[in-house]
């Protein structure tokens, strides 16, 4: 723990004990507790490190006139202090513990009514209860009854905390009992551990009496569960809900025999609750049953018969909405139970079967079908039920074939049929019955169902054997895209589904020319849509399609989907170039990204440069210079990153022509991007610079790609790494090109940027560069000698902006060096002797001063800078020391009202 903090803490405690109302803000106490939590987790004993806390607790607990938030804080703090047995003992011996958790004490003071005291009491106990002594304390003090009462507290937070606490108590008792009775279930260890750290502690001190006490606690809690589970009237549903939540927690974490015991106690009540059929309790009930069921599943026990029976009951419940919820909840768990999985699948497919009229289910109980149909006739519930079913279809198709009542292909057909119904295009095949007609008209025009169905369709692309549906899916999605009433999200999802299906079913031989024509037409139309969101999705689609590899016919070679279905660049590039003029910046940005994706193939193949590409580059450079929105400018830099990286990763096919366009462009991008106002543009620009560094020094010894600080400071670095075995002339050449491309200027300007991410990245890259060209490890003299040639490489430092900052830094460094009798400080900047005015004059006179790159890299104290930049910008503000100081300052401000006045005035 920080010494300074320790020294401040007693004064802070005094302040808090005296009056809590002078806190700087509401969150101070929470922040203090967070700090204590961190300390406790790190293994620090609070009482040892901060003995003042004991006095604080005993003072506060007697002063019931204090602000309840301070009292609540104290309750919780006591829990942290008493988390170790030693400290617990100290607190108990000093009688503080009894008083802190004495209910009567708080009730008599009239404070128990305040929910923050109640929650403080629960959380304090909960934190403390990590060792058997604390558990005995809990049992002996008979805290169980009040805790059970708190479970139905009017404050939801209190009730929930009480629930958690009860579960914790029961699990603690279980662990203690099992240790005491030497009845540790090997398989259950993991479960016990997940319940709390208590299982890791030693319980050698457990006696037969305490064991009996614990058994009594377990019985009391179980009795309470049993008694309160079934509501006597509708108004008590809240209580049942709480009990069910607790039960779900317990059944998931307990092991036999406690698990058995709990189940036995509550089984009848759960039965009763099921028969009563409260719809609000269906999901919590299902959670309980599934928790019990999963517990068997996880522990590889055979499912308990009672649980299986309850589950079967749930999956045969009469109310259709409840039934669907239960089936969906079961499927979500992904349990290995073929019978119930198959049953859930049948339940979830029933609404689709009814509405589409496709025979997804060979047999269904007539009554169930009738009830479901009646439910589906109501528009609201129809839409929500269908959406639940659709959401689960992809998971269903991945199930074992014997669980599914129909092949996945039929489910895809059903989803397609539903989408047709939504657009009002077709009647359901079973529309002969008026019931079905009534149901199917509920989904006409429902964009919610459409969106769900499209999501399902996208996910269904991965189901086995559905590739045969590609042409049908294609047709329907194009219809969706063409439909004037489709909302922007539906269109976006349709585009996504189309890309997904094409990427999964890479064989596009079933796609006819008519399909292609229809898609071309619709893409052309949507790229001119009145809604920018649609134009954006269209442009994105074009880009994503270019990245999908497909095979058109078995005989043909693979190509990208854009070429296969849209005819490639000749169709997409003009559309994307038109989108560069869009009024909406998001569309422009997407168009730029899509252009990069579309041209990626030609870059990789090293295709000759076209006039169009040259025009695109000019357009993009214009966007970078003139576009008012950051999104588009960021996309431009990313475009060049993509281009450059594709060129470097396919260096074998680099075309000189494209390089002749790329490198001058990159130079412009670096100079424009590093002068941008948007920090993300600047970060991307640095990424581009990094790529150039990578390319320039790839294979050079001493060059580590990426983050140079990742190596541990004490790691042993092989000598060879620092031995300059490569040709110095090469390095000079490379460094010269880096200077010429503007990489060095971009990095230096980034270093002094006011945005931390920019400066951090630039700093890391400069360190990387330094380590290659002039590592600090060589020492100044060695370096001068060894790098006589490299040191001759210079870069310009113009007299404005970032360069002025760099110069200042260099001058400062030189002065420091001179003061210390340093070696070469005065030579770093050959114009620094003339001072500030001289620099100005040099610039004005047209002679931009030049500096040696090596010397700059070695003089900028990059490592110190990196250290500062790595810390988060609010690290000072958020430190515990700052918190403690704030509390003290606020208190002194309060004691001197005049000062406070000033502070307030300052704020304004």
């Amino acid at each position, binding site marked *: 723990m920080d010494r300074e903090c320790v020294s401040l803490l007693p004064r802070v405690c005094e302040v808090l004990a005296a009056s809590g109302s002078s806190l700087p803000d509401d969150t101070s106490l929470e922040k203090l507790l967070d700090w204590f939590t961190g300390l406790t987790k790190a293994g620090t004993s609070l009482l040892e490190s901060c003995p003042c806390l004991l006095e604080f607790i005993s003072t506060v607990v007697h002063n019931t006139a204090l602000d309840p938030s301070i009292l609540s804080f104290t309750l919780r703090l006591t829990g942290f202090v008493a988390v170790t047995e030693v400290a617990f003992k100290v607190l108990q011996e000093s009688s503080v513990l009894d008083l802190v958790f004495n209910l009567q004490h708080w009730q008599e003071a009239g404070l128990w009514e305040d929910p923050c005291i109640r929650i403080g009491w629960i959380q304090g106990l909960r934190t403390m209860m990590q060792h058997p002594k604390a558990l005995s304390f809990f049992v002996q003090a008979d805290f169980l009854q009040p805790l059970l009462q708190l479970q139905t507290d009017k404050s939801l937070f209190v009730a929930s905390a009480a629930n958690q606490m009860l579960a914790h108590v029961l699990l603690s008792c279980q662990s203690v009992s099992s240790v005491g009775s030497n009845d540790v279930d090997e398989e259950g260890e993991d479960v016990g551990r997940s319940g709390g750290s208590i299982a890791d502690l030693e319980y050698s001190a457990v006696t037969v009496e305490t064991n009996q006490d614990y058994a009594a606690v377990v019985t009391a809690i179980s009795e309470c569960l049993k008694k309160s589970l079934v509501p006597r009237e509708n108004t008590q549903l809240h209580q049942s809900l709480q009990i069910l939540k607790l039960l779900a927690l317990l059944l998931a974490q307990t092991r036999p025999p406690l698990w058995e015991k709990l189940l036995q106690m509550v089984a009848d009540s759960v039965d009763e609750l099921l028969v009563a059929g409260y719809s609000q309790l269906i999901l919590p009930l299902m959670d309980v049953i599934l928790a019990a069921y999963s517990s068997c599943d996880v522990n590889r026990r055979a499912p308990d018969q009672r649980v299986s029976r309850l589950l079967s009951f749930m999956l045969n419940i009469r109310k259709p909405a409840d039934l669907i919820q239960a089936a969906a909840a079961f499927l979500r768990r992904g349990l290995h139970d073929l019978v119930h999985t198959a049953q859930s699948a049948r339940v979830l497919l029933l609404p689709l079967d009814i509405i589409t009229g496709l025979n997804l289910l060979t047999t269904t109980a007539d009554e169930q079908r009738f009830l479901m149909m009646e439910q589906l006739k109501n528009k609201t519930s129809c839409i929500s039920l269908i959406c639940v079913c659709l959401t689960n279809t992809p998971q269903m198709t991945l199930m074992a074939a014997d669980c599914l009542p129909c092949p996945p292909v039929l489910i895809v057909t059903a989803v397609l049929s539903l989408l047709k119904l939504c657009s009002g295009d077709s009647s359901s095949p079973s529309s002969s019955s008026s019931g079905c007609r009534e149901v199917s008209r509920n989904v006409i025009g429902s964009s919610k169902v459409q969106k769900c169905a499209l999501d399902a369709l996208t996910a269904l692309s991965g189901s086995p054997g559905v590739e045969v549906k590609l042409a049908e899916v294609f047709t329907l999605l194009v219809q969706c895209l063409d439909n004037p009433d489709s909302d922007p999200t539906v269109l976006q999802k349709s585009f996504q589904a189309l890309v997904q299906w094409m990427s999964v079913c890479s064989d596009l031989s079933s796609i006819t020319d008519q399909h292609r024509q229809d898609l071309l037409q619709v893409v052309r139309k949507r790229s*001119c849509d009145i809604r920018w969101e649609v134009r954006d999705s269209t442009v994105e689609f074009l880009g994503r399609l270019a990245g999908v590899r497909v095979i058109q016919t078995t005989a043909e070679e693979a190509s990208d989907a854009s070429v296969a279905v849209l005819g490639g660049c000749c169709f997409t590039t003009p559309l994307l170039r038109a989108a560069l003029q869009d009024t909406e910046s998001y569309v422009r940005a997407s168009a730029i990204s899509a252009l990069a994706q579309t041209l990626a193939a030609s870059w990789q193949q090293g295709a000759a440069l076209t006039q169009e590409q040259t025009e695109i580059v000019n357009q993009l450079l214009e966007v970078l210079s003139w576009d008012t929105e950051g999104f588009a400018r960021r996309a431009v830099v990313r475009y060049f990153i993509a281009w450059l990286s594709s060129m470097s990763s396919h260096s074998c096919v680099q075309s000189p022509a494209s390089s002749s366009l790329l490198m001058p462009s990159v130079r412009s991008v670096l100079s424009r991007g590093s002068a941008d106002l948007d920090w993300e543009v600047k970060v991307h620009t640095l990424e581009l610079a990094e790529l150039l560094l990578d390319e320039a020094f790839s294979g050079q010894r001493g060059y580590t790609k990426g983050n140079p600080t990742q190596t541990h400071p004490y790691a042993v670095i092989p000598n060879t790494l620092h031995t300059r075995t490569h040709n110095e002339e090469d390095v000079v050449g490379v460094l010269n090109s880096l200077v010429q491309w503007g990489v060095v200027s971009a990095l230096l300007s980034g270093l002094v940027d006011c945005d931390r991410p920019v400066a951090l990245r630039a700093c890391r890259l400069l360190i990387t560069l330094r380590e290659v060209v002039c590592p600090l490890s060589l020492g100044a003299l060695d370096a001068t000698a060894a790098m006589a040639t490299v040191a001759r490489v210079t870069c310009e430092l113009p007299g404005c902006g970032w360069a002025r900052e760099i110069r200042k830094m260099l001058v400062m460094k030189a002065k420091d060096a001179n003061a210390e009798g340093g070696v070469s400080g005065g030579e770093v900047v050959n114009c620094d002797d003339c001072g500030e005015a001289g620099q100005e004059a040099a610039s004005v006179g047209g002679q931009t001063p030049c500096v040696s790159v090596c010397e700059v890299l070695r003089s900028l104290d990059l490592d110190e800078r990196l250290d500062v930049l790595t810390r988060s910008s609010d690290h000072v503000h958020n430190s515990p020391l700052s918190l403690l100081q704030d509390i003290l300052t606020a208190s002194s401000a309060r004691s001197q009202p005049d000062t406070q006045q000033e502070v307030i005035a300052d704020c304004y």
Partner: protein
Amino acid sequence: MKLYCLSGHPTLPCNVLKFKSTTIMLDCGLDTTSVLNFLPLPLVHSPRLSKLPGWISKDGTINLEKELKDCAGRVFVDSQPEFCLPERELLDLSTIDVILISNYHCMMALPYITEHTGFTGTVYATEPTLQIGRLLMEEVVNFMERVPKAQSATCWKNKEIQRMLPGPLKDAVDVWTWKRCYSMQEVNSALSKVQLVGYSQKVELFGAVQVSPLSSGYSLGSSNWIIQSHHEKVSYVSGSSLLTTHPQPMDQSSLKNSDVLILTGLTQMPTANPDGMLGEFCSNLAMTIRAGGNVLVPCYSSGVIYDLLECLYQFIESASLGTTPFYFISPVANSSLEFSQIFAEWLCHNKQTKVYLPEPPFPHAELIQTNKLKHYPSIHGDFSSEFRQPCVVFTGHPSLRFGDVVHFMELWGKSSLNTIIFTEPDFSYLDALAPYQPLAMKCVYCPIDTRLNFHQVSKLLKEVQPLHVVCPEQYTQPPLTQSHRSDLMLELQPPPMPYRRCSVLNLPFRRRYERVYILPELANSLVPSEIKPGVSVATVSAVVHSKDNKHTLQHGITEVKVEETADGHILHLQAEDTLIQLEEDGTHIVCDNNEPLRTTLRDLVLRFLQKL
């Protein structure tokens, strides 16, 4: 109460309501779909149309070469286009007291009804309805008159011959009632009978009923009508819209508590959502222009065009169409664009507030100012010298049978770069294009109909809860082409009463009460006696005085003494000091200085004697 249905077209209604002692015509729609059977009227000589072969029946027995022409596999009448008028035989049109107009599209048959039928009543309409209606009539007259056709084809209408003709001519109904377009003189005469009304203004008709227009939200000045007496209320809902477009929003609450609601003018495109269509319109337009083609938009000169221009105003920049010229060609283009800017009080709230800034309510003013939108009365004159391509042309008539649009069809039809975008829902686009086939230009159908759809109308009816709904029979069943769409029909309890052309419906409610006033002096003389707490009754003997459908109870003759004489009786009206001597051979009324009383008594006695 009866309803006579004179039109079978649900959105161009013409019904007559007999209510109390009044005869009220509700709208006067003209079904212009009949013009689709005629050949287009080209503005400049068209070699293609002039060389069309005449029609002779296959067996050669019927030769109508002069009247019918074979064009692109279909037979068209080569004559001045004719319109299908509302039914004129169902009742005597001269008995109509008033005509209530709901919007400018539903008054196009007015000259056929008010002229040459003996009509002497009044037409009620709002000011924008009158002014824009006049423009639309003027435009049609102009379209017809500037390309006169001497020939008038009538032989084909002969029943025996018509039976032998190919479809769709064979199936055309009531062809004998079809009439050529009216003249401007008839238009002016008809419109002179219009009396202007404002929303919620109450107009008394002969003291019997009160009529009042309500905003219907469909077009400038469009209205629904409330027709009510003291105890009965009939609502007439025609062409209403709940969408936020340029007109004042629809007044729904005033339609509540109606005994009968007559519902007409629902959307003709229930499956085409106007917003989607507008989007479709814009993207197709941009797509064509980008590809270097021209866009032709056949439309009416008022109505949706204002919304189209407003939408394009916003879209032009984002679609980089800033340099593309937009032309609006109509003999009334200028008036239409200017009228729209001056009817501020009839516009939606947003547009009304603009007027106070002051700014023109519609942005097409700016489009005109910046030369992006140019308007011309016809293709002749300035237009021909300033015309630049690629461009967008808005022009009429949407039927493609007359107006400047015919010229553009001939001009642009052969290039697949060009696109025709149909936005008006009144005509089947396939039928409209039939005489221009084969056509290379692209065709896009995005009908924009902002009128109520079935979903909206169901909600509206749930809200206003009329006792009975009367509607065209088309609304009581799903559209023929989409028989599975049971959501595209009215499902009400009790079921709506359907009507078709020539139906006469007895509206299902009986008048039970009539309001009668008591003069204060008579009321003073009444002696009420309480029969139960809060309810008192009194007997009244008085005279009912009825004038202008207002009934008043007033003091009458109360004391009569009857004397028997040898030859008869003498009645002595004491208060009036009058004697009525009734004898076998003569009757005398002796009444000094009260000639009116004497005459009244004489008439009464005569009537009695006649009855005896």
